[in-house]
């Protein structure tokens, strides 16, 4: 294990990996910052590259993007009062007033440092918990895994939707789509209507490009130019971004609240950055000595949500690596990127490819380091990118959607599928139905069916097998609990949401 960790460290600290991490960070800061481009859009742009780059390099790139995207979102939240990504919504509450007082640099610095602390705390969790969880997960049998995946799906639904039922409908739609193609167990063609292209089914990356990028693209194109924000903003001198010691002392407590909350919520599939940010903001405010400052430009109010949303990233990597269960679109893509290179995330990853597993963990560490340095040094330069004309950016994203969906399997049919999912995404937004459950159902649908069927083969058709293992009973109860819980918590969350957050909880 120590050997694997050392190997992983040397892999992650190779020059090519470090360069990839740095590029990913720059890119992540940019897409996170630009309103209308989310981390998912950024990932879609680099997606085709991950098909051919070495796995450790593409993972380093993607991790850099993931980590930095969370930070980049806070720049626009602070400067323009528009969150660059949904996760930064809570940052705007105090970030924008502070900027209005002429302390933009200070606000940005606090956000960047808090992001770093959140990231490093979650790195600690990842490093300590992931190998242990992988060991535990080795004991899981098919019924346990079925129950676990089911729990993953229900908790995603209950987090993602204002109305639980719409989240569940979305997930069910995804499960229906996943059954199109050849049956994973026997190769029987299902719902293919004798169409050759449908035999291999819908790839979730194709669906993801359509569901996320196309509606964002169209929304951005449909925003009349006059409504686009005025982006010329002064930050102050180079050194104004570097936080003062007194500030650091003051934000220590909110960061220590935000980081564990973020790491824990990252662990739960579907919770994601926005929820973690709001919960820790709320909690930091309640426990603060001077809560009356919150909302008027308190640096504590920036530090708590920013540390939380970055801590989510490390937390989300834990179930992704050890169980193969993605908690958000980004980790879903990470799984896809690993699979393209013949690496299957799951409990065996640590046993069979421990070097790679630890390489991933250390790449995440470096991503946080680079994020701190590049954001502090480069923020003044990066903000200038907000002026890139939409007229060049949006069509480029359009082309990249097409490249990304084609290059995956070299199939024209996949491009059509991608566009069809774009239309589905538009309709779902129109009826306020979350797309994340559908997407994750596409990832989890196959394992769900396989584990269910293998369980029943193993028990020779006896359904009580799901009640015989403590793990399976535990996960099934958690699944039921998550459904009930979301029925109770939703009113409370709506109240929280009404305070500030507007827009989707997707990333």
């Amino acid at each position, binding site marked *: 294990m120590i050997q694997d960790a050392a190997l992983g460290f040397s892999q992650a600290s190779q020059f090519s990996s470090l360069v990839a991490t740095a590029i990913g960070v720059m890119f992540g800061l940019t897409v996170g910052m630009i309103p209308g481009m989310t981390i998912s859009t950024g990932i879609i742009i680099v997606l085709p590259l991950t098909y051919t780059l070495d796995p450790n390099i593409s993972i380093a790139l993607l991790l850099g993007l993931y980590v930095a995207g969370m930070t980049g979102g806070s720049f626009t939240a602070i400067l323009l009062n528009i969150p660059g990504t949904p996760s930064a919504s809570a940052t705007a509450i105090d970030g924008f007033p502070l900027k209005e007082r002429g302390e933009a640099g200070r606000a940005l610095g606090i956000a960047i440092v808090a992001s770093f602390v959140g990231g490093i705390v979650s790195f600690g969790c990842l490093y300590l918990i992931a190998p242990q969880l992988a060991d535990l997960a080795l004991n899981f049998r098919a019924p346990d895994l079925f129950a676990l995946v089911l729990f993953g799906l229900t908790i995603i639904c209950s987090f993602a939707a204002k109305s639980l039922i719409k989240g569940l409908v979305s997930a069910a739609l995804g499960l229906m789509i996943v059954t199109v193609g050849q049956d994973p167990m026997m190769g029987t063609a299902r719902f293919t209507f004798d169409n050759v292209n449908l035999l291999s089914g819908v790839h979730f990356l194709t669906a993801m490009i359509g569901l996320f990028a196309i509606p964002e693209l169209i929304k951005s194109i449909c925003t009349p130019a006059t409504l686009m924000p005025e982006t010329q903003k002064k930050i102050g001198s180079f050194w104004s971004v570097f936080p003062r010691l007194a500030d650091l002392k003051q934000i220590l407590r909110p960061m220590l609240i935000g980081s564990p909350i973020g790491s824990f919520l990252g662990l739960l599939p579907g919770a994601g950055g926005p929820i973690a940010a709001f919960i820790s903001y709320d909690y930091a405010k309640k426990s603060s000595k001077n809560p009356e400052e919150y909302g008027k430009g308190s640096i504590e109010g920036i530090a708590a949500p920013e540390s939380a949303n970055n801590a989510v990233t490390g937390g989300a990597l834990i179930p992704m690596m050890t169980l193969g269960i993605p908690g958000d679109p980004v980790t879903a893509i990470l799984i896809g990127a690993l699979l393209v290179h013949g690496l299957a995330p799951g409990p065996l990853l640590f*046993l069979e*490819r421990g070097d790679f597993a630890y390489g991933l963990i250390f790449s995440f560490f470096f991503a946080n380091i680079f994020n701190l340095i590049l954001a502090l040094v480069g923020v003044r330069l990066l903000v200038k990118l907000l002026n890139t004309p939409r007229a060049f950016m949006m069509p480029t994203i359009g082309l990249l959607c097409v490249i990304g969906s084609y290059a995956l399997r070299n199939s024209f049919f996949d491009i059509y599928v991608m566009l069809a999912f774009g239309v589905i995404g538009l309709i779902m937004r129109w009826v306020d139905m979350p797309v994340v459950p559908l997407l994750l159902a596409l990832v989890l649908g196959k394992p769900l069916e396989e584990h269910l069927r293998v369980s029943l083969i193993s028990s020779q058709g006896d359904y009580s097998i799901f009640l015989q293992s403590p793990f399976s009973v535990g996960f099934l109860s958690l699944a039921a609990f998550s459904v009930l819980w979301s029925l109770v918590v939703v009113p409370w969350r709506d109240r929280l949401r009404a305070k500030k957050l507007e827009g989707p909880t997707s990333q």
Partner: protein
Amino acid sequence: MYRFTKTTLTGLIGAFAMASCFMGVVRAEFPEKAIEFVIPFGAGGSADIEGRLLANAMSKVLGVPVVPVNKVGGGGAVTYTHLKNSKPDGYTIAWASTSLLTSSGIGNIPFDHSALDHLGQVEFQPMIVSVKGNAKWQTFKEFADYCKANPGKLKIANSGTGSATHIAAVAVENAMGCKVIHLPVGIKRRNATVLSGEADAAVGPLTATRRLAKAGKLRMLAAPTAERNPVAPDVPTMKELGYDADLDLFRSLAVPKGTPAAVVARLKEAMVTAANSAAFKDLAKKNGFTIKPLVGKDFDQRLAKDGAVVISIMKGAGIYKSKTK
């Protein structure tokens, strides 16, 4: 005006003619673009590891990218169906194996190996019956005896219903003479199911079993093969132990039916060169598969021989061409 049009037209025709000549020249030179290399099993398995390395080596020979793509499901059925439906231009090749014979034999695909063209065999390796490292069975005989005492209780994991490992497990089952439950858990879970204790044993290619066996997590009991493998010299063959089961896993390359002869020849050449490349040889030595390129008649013989073995195993278990009701 008239003259202008005429000149333009002549120019256009000339340009077109030149372009088509040029394209004709280019077309003659196969390959001119990337080749899709379809792998029938999932990431991290032996088919995947060996396939990716071979694809890489072939790419160096052919001078174009050879891109590995996993199309998993139905014990290989998904890949073979995809290949059969692909354009016969040489730009889609499949990393076929014994699973072509088995998945068609069991009825997962409605065609047999003659519906595809074959470049030939690349390598072969034994499949191994393994149990958990701390299992109570030290030898295969103990395992078989336990099975006889508890028929229908033991669970053996394989890479998918209709895959080569499934049929090898059926062969083992036939040889032991007692019923077992076959768990079609797929490449990703095959070893994991044994480690978690859900399955009592697994049948998998040597390549995929070797690493965990070396670490003491798995114990290799026996191999339904003709002779012992240098990488695992302690693992007896089933024949030595007095059980009649012999089915090796060969891996070969296939292209869609009707691929032009010149293209097939070029690919065959690339396949043989890649199979004998240093990188592939290193992997073979490390993981215990035997590189033995077989093309043309020799490979047809192998297909016929193994096909007959597969059919007899399936008939013995009553799963040959299990039709839809």
